[in-house]
């Protein structure tokens, strides 16, 4: 479980780097990027097991990134983050293949638990 490779995608640098550091502290291998394109790039070179993906991003939106990940790497688990009130986005994301979604600000223990659930669900 520890040593799990995680990719964090969010346009808020402070948020995403801090979260990555905290996950590192907990023994995960976390990498942070701030836009969809670079995320897709990393996935191609070094695919992670879990991606934490923000829905609302300038440029390529989270749902678009999700779509591409799921078409090319359906085995990667995606957990969505929304800052928006709408659960609709979360549900839409889950319909498009996301494992679950969390509303910002997130609780790190909850995030870890969801990631563990995602890994466990892997066939």
């Amino acid at each position, binding site marked *: 479980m520890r040593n799990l490779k995680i990719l964090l995608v969010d346009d808020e640098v402070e948020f995403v780097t*801090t979260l990555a550091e*905290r996950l590192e502290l907990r023994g995960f291998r976390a990498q942070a990027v701030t836009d969809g394109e670079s995320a897709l790039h990393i996935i191609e070179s070094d695919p992670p097991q879990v991606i934490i993906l923000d829905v609302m991003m300038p440029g390529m939106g989270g749902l678009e990134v999700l779509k591409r990940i799921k078409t090319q790497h359906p085995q990667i688990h995606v957990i969505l983050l929304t800052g928006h*009130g709408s659960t*609709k986005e979360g549900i839409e994301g889950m319909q498009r293949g996301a494992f679950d979604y969390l509303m*910002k*600000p*997130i609780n790190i223990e909850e995030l870890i638990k969801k990631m563990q659930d995602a890994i466990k669900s892997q066939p």
Partner: protein
Amino acid sequence: MSPKNLWTRLTKSLLHNSNGEASNRYRILRRNIFILMILITIIPLIIMAGIYQHEYQSSIKKEIVNPLKTLANKTKHSLELFLEERLSVIRFIAASYSFEELSDQKTLNRIFNVLMDEYCCLVDLGLINKKGIQLSYVGPYEFLGKNYSKQSWFHEVVVKGNYISDVFMGYRQFPHVAIAVLRRTEEGRYLILRATIDTSKFDNIIASMQLDQESDAFLINREGFLQTPSRFYGKILDKYPVSFPMGNYGPIVVEEVDPQKRIMLIVYVPFTRSDYIMVLTKQRSALLKPWYTLKTKMLIIFAISVITIVLIVFKLTDTLVKRVKDADEKRELAYKEVQHTHKLSSIGRLAAGVAHEINNPLAIINEKAGLMKDLVAYDDQFWKNEKFLGLTDSILKSVERCKEITHRLLGFARRMEVQLVKLDLNELIQETLSFLNKEALYRNIVLKLQLTDNLPYIVSDRGQLQQVFLNILSNAFAAVEDGGEVVVTSWEEDLDTLGVSIQDNGSGMSEEILRNIFDPFFTTKQKGGTGLGLAITYGIVKKMGGEIKVKSKQGEGSIFTVYLPKKAKIGPGE
């Protein structure tokens, strides 16, 4: 009150329902409709009843009056015949005998005896010469040698040739009538023959009319003195107490109130050859008994109809006003609901915006504080370990609290989400206008609808679009004076777009205002304007993928044009 006035008042009473006055207005409305309906129904009924009563009364009267007339006329004829007979006998005698023969007491006596046998009621007979001296006389009185030249009847008989006196009381207090004829002899002498008749025969003739208790028949002379005894008005030569028509006329019927305060139906028939007037009276109450029974029946029917009408009208008015009130209340409620939705959605939008914007920094605080806590927790050597953990915990707790608030706000905003349905734009416009119809009516605002028929359906959010039009229309209404004009036009702009324009001839806007109208919290309204109406409108139209354009000229009015895609493309909007 003219009908138009009344109508204006009715409608006004309907429209102006600030809550405190509302019930009062419905009461007035109810009262007005009630009165109107009662008038409309009962007036014709009254007119009909009145005409019927009048017609029936006059026909019944004719039926009753005609026999009375005939009876009076017949009796008058009998009386006149009686007098005429006596007069012609005297005339015959005056013609058949010479002056000398008649002045002879014996001959006159013989003639009188024959007359007494043949004709009843003669009292005396006498010859009077040119100078008015009684030359011969047969009868119970001592009139021989009496001079009549100073008496008025003498002059009348000299002029007219014959004379019938009014009734007078003779020396023995019996009612008498004197008759006299004049003949000029071949020798150029005057011969006046005078006889007195006992009028008891009059009474007999009148008695033969067989009148009932409520009737009376008698003779009066032209001066109004009774010539025969009357059942109601006294004895012979008393003054007849009722005014009567003068002149020569046929039978005439009048209604008079007599001294006993009875309403009498009176028939007057004047004699042709003498100054008598035959009078036949009957109490009207007795005459019109059948009429009164009918009238009572009619009154009862009338009363029943009126009560029925009043009850029905009352019930009807009640139902009507209740319906109107219900409809009004429903509309009011719907209007309030829309307004409420409007308010809620603007708050919701604001809340969502705030929550969203706050969530991101909050997430950063959360992670930073979390990292601080982690660092402290993983480093056992850290000084003031406990203190730091306490501080970070309290930051995290505060973040948690903020998160709860933003999530609650977002939850609220979520309820305002768009729901796309297929809808008829014209129908939607008309539905929206129904919220403003009352104001238009009350303020005499002319609402012109130029809606293109058979517009294609569009797919959009009904509530949001309604809000768009309601906002623009409300502004148009606020801009125009009472009596102004608002024109709503709809058309198909192109294959994908429908257009709706709302034009008013109100105050218009300056360039500066025009630049700001879609800004949130910008308002020109003195009070009650949130400045969100057009901002929200703009937001919704944009969100639907539409366009909104304004043209305005100060003092001339404004025109708002909304272009809507036939299929809403939901975007981020504002």
